[in-house]
């Protein structure tokens, strides 16, 4: 895996979709050329002391030919608010690609069970699996229709996209895990990746432990550096003492190896 670079990069475009979520396309050729599914970047778009630390974001897609990659950020605090207001052509400081890239694609059918901003994490994987002609079934969940994230991209890179909303404004009115269970029963998927919901993570882990699927979790953590220096992003190991670091050992983990917070 290529070692990360730290570069001044350029914001090529910025688009809000849906409200509160911003898609940033950033030009940095080396990152675009070496990034793989599951990897992330640390981004700083400010010279201030507050905020001071760079922020981690999953790489949504990378285009090695154009030398650009895309992020999708949810405006939550000071850092994401600043990033969401950057003008086209602005400079950002980016370290990446970071974390372990997903390299096993031997499943006969993969389900991507995602909610909210967690949808951004699996787009790259969906694209990779589609290029390899592996079946991809995406279950895209949100509280309501207007909060469905990365929908168009996931529709492009999935054999099927199932929508589930808590309020029934679109698609299945209920829990996305019901759709997953149905896909498993039908024998369509043997591997599941999930991101964006502790409830989903617990469900996938239970399926993994029961031997019904290979379950994987995209995890996040408070992260200072993204490259193993600060030891901040700890996640508890399951079945043994100690912690993994999300940045170095993940961010994608086999679900049975980590403790999922309640």
């Amino acid at each position: 895996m290529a070692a990360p670079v730290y570069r001044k990069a350029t914001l090529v475009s910025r688009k809000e979709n849906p409200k509160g979520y911003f898609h940033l396309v950033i030009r940095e050729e080396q990152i675009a050329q070496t990034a793989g599914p599951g990897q992330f970047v640390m981004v700083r778009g400010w010279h201030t002391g507050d905020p001071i630390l760079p922020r981690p974001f999953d790489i949504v897609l990378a285009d090695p030919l154009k030398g650009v990659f895309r992020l999708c950020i949810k405006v939550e605090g000071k850092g994401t608010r600043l990033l969401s207001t950057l003008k086209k052509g602005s400079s950002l400081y980016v370290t990446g690609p970071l974390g372990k890239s997903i390299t096993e694609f031997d499943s006969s059918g993969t389900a991507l069970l995602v909610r909210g901003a967690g949808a951004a994490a699996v787009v790259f994987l969906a694209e990779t699996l589609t290029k390899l002609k592996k079946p991809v079934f995406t279950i895209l969940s949100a509280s309501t229709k207007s909060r469905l994230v990365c929908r168009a991209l996931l529709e492009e890179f999935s054999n099927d996209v199932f929508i589930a909303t808590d309020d029934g404004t679109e698609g299945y009115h209920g829990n996305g895990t019901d759709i997953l269970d149905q896909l498993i029963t039908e024998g369509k998927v043997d591997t599941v990746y999930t991101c964006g919901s502790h409830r989903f993570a617990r469900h996938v882990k239970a399926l993994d432990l029961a031997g019904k699927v290979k379950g994987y979790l995209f995890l996040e953590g408070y992260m200072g550096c993204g490259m193993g220096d600060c030891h901040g992003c700890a996640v508890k190991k399951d079945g043994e003492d100690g912690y993994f670091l999300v940045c170095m050992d993940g961010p994608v983990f086999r679900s049975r190896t980590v403790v999922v917070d309640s």
Partner: protein
Amino acid sequence: MRVSPDLSVEIAGVPFPNPVMPASGAYEVDEIHDNFFSPSELGAVINKTIFLHPRPGNPPPRIWETPCGMLNAIGIPCDGAEAFIWDKLPNLRKLGPPVVVSIAGETMEEWIELSELIESTGMADLLELNLSCPNLSDGIPWSTEEKTLERVVSAVVSRVKLPVIAKLSPVVTDIADMARTAEGAGASALSMINTYKGMAIDIKRKRPVLGNVTGGLSGPAIRPLAVWAVYSAYETVKIPIIGMGGIDGPTAAIEFLLAGASAVAVGMYNFIDPFTMKKTIEGIRTYLLEEGYSSVREIIGMAHTRA
């Protein structure tokens, strides 16, 4: 043609090619860092503090951003001394710069055993005693009580030939007193300062943010406090000081040198810009050229000179 200024300094008889090194626990030497700059360019290298036995570290959340700084409560996870000596120390040794090995003990016996073990490897040039981590649950005040500080430093010094650096906590009434105590106990140098104990509270959950409740504050927020600590200790002790606390580049590093530090360490800013230490080395060189000094040693403690 102007001659490039001499950046070399000496810490406890050990020559450093330049005065910039990482702070312990804030920079790893591994392949992840290959594309940044070579750690062989540093003034010295140092490990994340090790204990004799493996430790898991603290439960998350372990870090929290604050204005111009961050709180950390990592809790010094480590694989233990044996793993360090086999897996990591040889990699530090082969880089070229002097190797500072940062250690901590949970008991007096452990301090001594670990010091002797590190010395026996022949791969360390200096031993830094991390007497001041604010995040350890046992809360042993190794460097906040003069008698305890005196006891641990003198015990280690009496058992090893390696020069000993005492890393001091700023959470004391007068750090100059602690500096003098460490010097009196036989320390060959001081690292000043470790983090300040602090906390943050989540107003929605109405609970402390960090898994450990409290953490150590670092970053530019603490820099003026750290500069003062170095300045006040410099007036009191004769042993060299490695200054640290919120160094984000050459300007801050030079402040510490002028305050009396013979070398400086970069901590949190390695997370923000992995080139910070390299930029700091280059910036010190430029400053010396512009100000007309032939050696960095000329400016150490210069802020104390009365007009």
